[in-house]
């Protein structure tokens, strides 16, 4: 790759390019305000643009305020400013075409062309756009000529006298699209494609993953989600700690006020408040990891892991037909390793299918010390008991010894009770059974859990 700095020499042109670059970043989901862009403009005259590392860092340090955005920035920077073998950098496309576009097309024509390009990009599958730019431009022009809405502009483009043609007075209609117009359209098309790829690709992917139905997640998507969940988990933690702060001021702490005001001769200059006790939720998580839905159980364990890292007092258990405590495992290892070691653990009679009854019985027998009047029990599972004893007695005992018991069911509501699911058997004994089919649902649930606890 060659660093492409000749194009940055002309100052005015360059300024426009930096705005374009900021625009590309914005579309990629980077949060940019006018302050960042102004900072960039102030910083640029202070450095030498010719040195790539310095130039790049100047843009990064002024524009990017969230380190999780750095990979996105790097990607955009490479595409935008660096020349790839055999291909112009986007910078060149921007530099040579934006001027030409403004010169060649009226404002209306330009916006019409842009919307046509959008339609064009929407109407073809992603793989289609791997073809060469020339080919794509040709197809695009053919298409707008054929279509009704595009016909008008197509005609007007074809009929236009080239303003660059030498014989300006020549009235004859050109048969071919003038090369300038063709070039300009190609530039617009490429730019739009780039902006779309950069911008929406990253953001759409996240939303897609967060909203995807748990059962349908693929193994590599789960891997991808780990980072995402980590970030979301952090955000959730921030929200929770914010709520904690808001309940900080309680009644006057007389003991502390008197003691601290002794230095003023007992005159209460400063009043001290008692911190209102914040109810830290004590969670017990029981997670069904039966083999029938391996992907889903991996995801559920990931959620359990997230929960444990979010709250201080969490005990996690996993079960198929037997129940095992995994709190320590999660505390010691990163999720991927912990997950693998759970699935390699022979303690689980792997492949037998879940036995909720047996697991509840075991929980009551071995771990009932985990339950206090402050405990909230979360059960993650589909309640498919493989026609075995539901262990209702133990389940009721769990309910009696805890404050709340929530059942987070990944099945859609109308599928509860379907086949060997015995959800409705448990529902009367739960505080609530909820449909939690993707990560966003879980995040909502945790939010409400916290509001209720106050």
């Amino acid at each position, binding site marked *: 790759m060659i660093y492409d700095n000749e194009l940055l020499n002309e100052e005015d042109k360059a300024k426009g390019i930096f705005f374009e670059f900021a625009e590309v970043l914005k579309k990629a989901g980077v*949060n940019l*305000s006018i*302050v*960042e862009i102004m*900072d960039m403009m*102030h*910083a640029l005259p*202070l*450095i030498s643009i010719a040195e790539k*590392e*310095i130039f790049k*860092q*100047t843009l*990064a*340090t*002024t524009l*990017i*305020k*969230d*380190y999780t955005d*750095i990979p996105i920035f790097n990607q955009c920077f490479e595409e935008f400013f660096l020349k790839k073998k055999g291909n112009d950098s986007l910078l060149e496309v921007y530099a040579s075409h934006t001027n030409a576009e403004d010169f060649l097309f009226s404002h209306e024509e330009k916006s019409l062309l842009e919307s046509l390009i959008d339609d064009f990009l929407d109407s073809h599958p992603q793989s289609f756009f791997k073809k060469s730019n020339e080919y794509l431009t040709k197809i695009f022009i053919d298409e707008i000529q054929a279509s009704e809405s595009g016909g008008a502009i197509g005609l007007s483009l074809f009929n236009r006298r080239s303003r660059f043609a030498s014989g300006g007075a020549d009235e004859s209609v050109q048969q071919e699209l003038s090369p300038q117009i063709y070039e300009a359209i190609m530039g617009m098309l490429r730019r739009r494609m780039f902006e779309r790829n950069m911008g929406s690709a990253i953001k759409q992917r996240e939303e897609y993953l967060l909203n995807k139905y748990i059962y349908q997640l693929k193994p590599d998507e789960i891997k991808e989600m780990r980072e995402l969940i980590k970030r979301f988990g*952090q*955000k959730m*933690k*921030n929200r929770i*700690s*914010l709520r904690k*702060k808001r309940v900080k001021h309680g009644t006057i702490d007389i003991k502390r006020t008197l003691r601290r005001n002794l*230095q*003023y*001769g007992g*005159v209460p*200059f*400063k009043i001290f408040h008692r911190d209102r006790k914040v109810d830290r939720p004590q969670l017990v998580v029981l997670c069904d990891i039966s083999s029938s839905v391996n992907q889903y159980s991996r995801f559920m364990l990931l959620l359990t892991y997230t929960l444990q890292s979010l709250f201080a007092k969490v005990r996690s258990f996993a079960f198929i037909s037997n129940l095992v405590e995994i709190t320590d495992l999660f505390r*010691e*290892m*990163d999720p*991927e*390793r912990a997950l693998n070691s759970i699935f390699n653990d022979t303690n689980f009679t792997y492949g037998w299918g879940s036995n909720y009854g047996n697991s509840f019985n075991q929980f009551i027998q071995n771990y009932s010390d985990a339950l206090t009047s402050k405990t909230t029990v979360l059960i993650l599972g589909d309640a498919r008991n493989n026609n075995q004893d539901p262990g209702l007695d133990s389940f009721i005992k769990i309910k009696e010894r805890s404050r709340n018991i929530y059942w987070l069911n990944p099945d859609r509501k109308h599928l509860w009770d379907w086949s060997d699911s015995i959800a409705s058997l448990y529902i009367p004994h739960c505080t609530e059974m909820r449909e939690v089919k993707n990560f966003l649902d879980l995040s909502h649930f945790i939010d409400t859990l916290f509001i209720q606890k106050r």
Partner: protein
Amino acid sequence: MFSSIEDTIQQLEKQKYICSKEIATTVYLALKMQKPILVEGPAGVGKTDLGKCIAQALGYELIRLQCYEGLDEAKALYEWEYAKQLLYTQILKDKLSKILEDQVTLKDAVNKLSTEEDVFFSEKFLVARPILKAITNKTHSVLLIDEIDKSDSEFEAFLLEVLSDFQVTIPEIGTITANKKPFVLLTSNNAREMSDALKRRCLHLYIDYPTKELEEQIVKLKVPECGNYLIKEIINTIHEIRKLPLKKDPSISETLDWAKALALLGCEVLNRDIAIDTLNFILKYEKDIELVKKNINTIIVH
């Protein structure tokens, strides 16, 4: 003031701080643009050291504010010295009654007294905490706000005025503006995200673990007693170890400790036995040590 980015690198190197071009660029720009820097990155990459070394290199005074949960205005900005105020009113009792002598009604007395109020709420009775100190300092200073992520989010709000306008507003006195604008450096370990308002006022610098070349330079500078060949081996090993899924990656300071230890032991080459015996210098968790031991054959050649 550093004259260029090159100069920044050189001046900091004199303080035994090796920095990459990226770091130097941000520092240079921040000084020129008079903007604070928010430094983020994993623990032990020299975020705090950066602040200290900039102060030394520029000959500025270093004013450090360590953040913690519950840090408030009174500890960071300023505080009224109640005890002193009380003491003075006691001592000046006679003087006060003399002033109030000719006032007939209580109301007049209060009015008269309030004209004198300024005396008691003046800078004489103000305890300057680090931020106010940095603002009122006669000479240039570097204000290092360490581990800002440990403080409460309310505290960030106090900082905003300082960071954008370099001034502090004290209701009883008014606004105090900086004589010499301090150079502000905030560090964060990402325990929580900073507010957008704070980020907007700062340049952002993310310091990651250094490249092999840079880390080699750092070790050479700080542990010169270590042979060049050994340093190379240490750095290669450390970089291999950082690729493993550890609970805590070895940081630069741990690399330095290890290099010092190996130099003291008189090693010339790093072999597996010695490395295994000294792993506790760079790894702080039993599980991590076990993991490295398991993979030792791929990490160290000898």
